[in-house]
């Protein structure tokens, strides 16, 4: 049953990705601007233009272009960036690690902040502490990451300048890295001076991305904790003499976490979507920042590649969460 569920999900995933590819392709090809005209110096002859159009396959019909592009994509060939004149897949892989690291740090922070708030709120249910947590999470949820980013820039970049508000790493540093996973590699190489510098750059964009998700986690987890805390087995643990915190951590959390998990999956994709503008705001050299440049430069192959990679990431996250849910949920596991 688990395998069947997995295969069905895999099929719908393929359909979704195909749909994304079609939509991106159609949207981009109806663009009125001519990307070729922007690549050539003034005074280029018609023959030059035609040659370049043929080189990028722009002289075929739109359906032909789509299938030429798609068969390339399936083989891992995303084409050549028009503005940067480099292989699209190479460019994407060069930037993707920066975005993944940022999103992962943000996710960890969201779970830590939201989880703590939920446990605290459930323990102090019915008191002013819970009311305070509710107000804080309501506010954190209503204000989007873009605005949180600006608030943080003002607070910790200008008013109390403790963190960096621009870039991924201090430019004067000598980086010994062979991969683009700077944070991960700095820890492996025990270069904690570099880790600290990276974190100082990453902290504020990560908090901006984490706050709305932390709010959702705190609200949902607190709700399920409060429901579980009234169940017999939890009451029994309390009678056995465990403190309320112990009861929550040892007995309630495991069963209350499941509904939160499914939601975190979808919300994590929203968080990754938010990296596009938050990276821009903090001049963080990730995929999203490059995507905006690609759109402004009308770099069609690069935009297609980036959007498709984002979409792939989103469906993979949803698939993973779905499978984790199936594995953790006893009713589905033994069904």
């Amino acid at each position, binding site marked *: 049953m688990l395998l069947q569920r997995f295969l069905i999900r895999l099929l719908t995933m393929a359909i979704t990705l195909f749909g994304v590819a079609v939509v991106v392709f159609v949207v981009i090809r109806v663009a*009125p601007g001519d990307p070729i005209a922007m690549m050539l110096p003034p005074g280029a002859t018609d023959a030059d233009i035609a040659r370049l159009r043929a080189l990028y396959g722009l002289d075929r019909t739109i359906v032909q272009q789509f299938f030429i592009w798609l068969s390339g994509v399936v083989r891992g060939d995303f084409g050549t960036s028009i503005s940067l004149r480099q292989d699209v897949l190479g460019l994407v892989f060069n930037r993707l690690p920066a975005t993944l690291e940022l999103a992962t740090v943000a996710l960890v922070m969201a779970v830590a902040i939201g989880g703590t708030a939920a446990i605290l709120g459930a323990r102090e249910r019915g008191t002013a502490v819970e009311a305070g947590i509710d107000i804080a999470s309501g506010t954190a949820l209503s204000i989007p990451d873009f605005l949180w980013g600006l608030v943080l820039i003002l607070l910790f970049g200008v008013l109390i300048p403790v963190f960096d508000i621009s870039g991924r790493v201090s430019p004067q540093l000598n980086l010994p890295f062979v991969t683009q996973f700077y944070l991960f590699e700095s820890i492996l190489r025990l270069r904690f001076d570099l880790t600290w510098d990276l974190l100082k750059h990453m902290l504020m964009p990560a908090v901006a991305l984490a706050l709305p998700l932390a709010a959702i986690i705190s609200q949902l987890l607190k709700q399920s904790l409060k429901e579980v805390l009234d169940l017999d087995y939890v009451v029994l643990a309390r009678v056995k003499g465990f403190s309320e915190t112990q009861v929550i951590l040892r007995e309630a959390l495991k069963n209350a976490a499941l509904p939160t998990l499914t939601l975190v999956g979808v919300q994590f994709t929203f968080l990754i979507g938010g990296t*596009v*503008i938050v990276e821009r705001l903090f001049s963080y050299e990730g995929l999203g920042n490059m995507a905006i440049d690609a759109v402004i430069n009308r770099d069609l192959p690069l935009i297609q590649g980036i959007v498709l990679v984002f979409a792939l990431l989103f469906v993979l996250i949803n698939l993973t969460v779905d499978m984790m849910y199936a594995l953790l949920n006893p009713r589905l596991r033994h069904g």
Partner: protein
Amino acid sequence: MDEARIARRGVGPRLWLAGGWLLLALLAAIFAPLVAPQDPLAQDLMLERLPPFWMSGAEPGYWLGTDSLGRDLLSRLIFGGRIAFIVAFAAAFAACLVGSTLGLIAGYFGGWADRIISRIVDIWMAFPPVLFAILLVAVLGTGLSSVIIAIAVIDWTRFCRVIRAEAMGQSRMDYVENARIAGYDRIGIMLREVLPNVVPSIVALLSLEMGIAVIVEAILSFVNLSISTDDPTWGGIIAEGRLSIHQAWWVLVFPLITLILTVLSFSQFGEALKARFDPVLR
């Protein structure tokens, strides 16, 4: 019951505060030429980066200070509100119309209609929304109508998902079955029986969506892809403020406060309306 009463008690001041701010900002935007103390486009290099009124060096008549070109910040915020509210209303209503219609059809009719619409929603959910918006505006060309279309094209799914679920729940209720037995046709039942019951959700989502539309417009003008004219926008002012943050913090602070208040008000307003309409809470 207790929770309902608490929710009800909280509605009053929240609704008034949120509604009050939105009304104030809306009226200021509508009557901008009468209310704004200065011409929002007038540059004066003698007046560049004036601080707000309570600081030394401030000039009378430039209450919130000026930007790096000597343009009055308060007047630019008031005029920027025009774009923000036009986009908020137009984009939210367009997204609502498309999303609610498709959601109602998918939820009430089910079957193939539901399968196709749900698959399209899935595809839409696989796009990073901000990137999709930027891409659409770049393709459509900058301008007010492009911004509105882009937001509607992206955000209809928010309405579709919620209304689909609600319509699905409603269509299983007895009264819908009774109407069917009584001989009403299915479209008639959908419009006369199911639709009125999902209206509270639509209204709440609409208010929420207006806040989202204001943000998306600000993001688009922040990356310089909103309207193409010189007219001030909140996001455009924020972009200027981000650049001169160390010289003139007020150019970033005041549009940011304006945006936060507006977004919070729209979401609070939506929740309050929902609580008021919701028969369970009422």
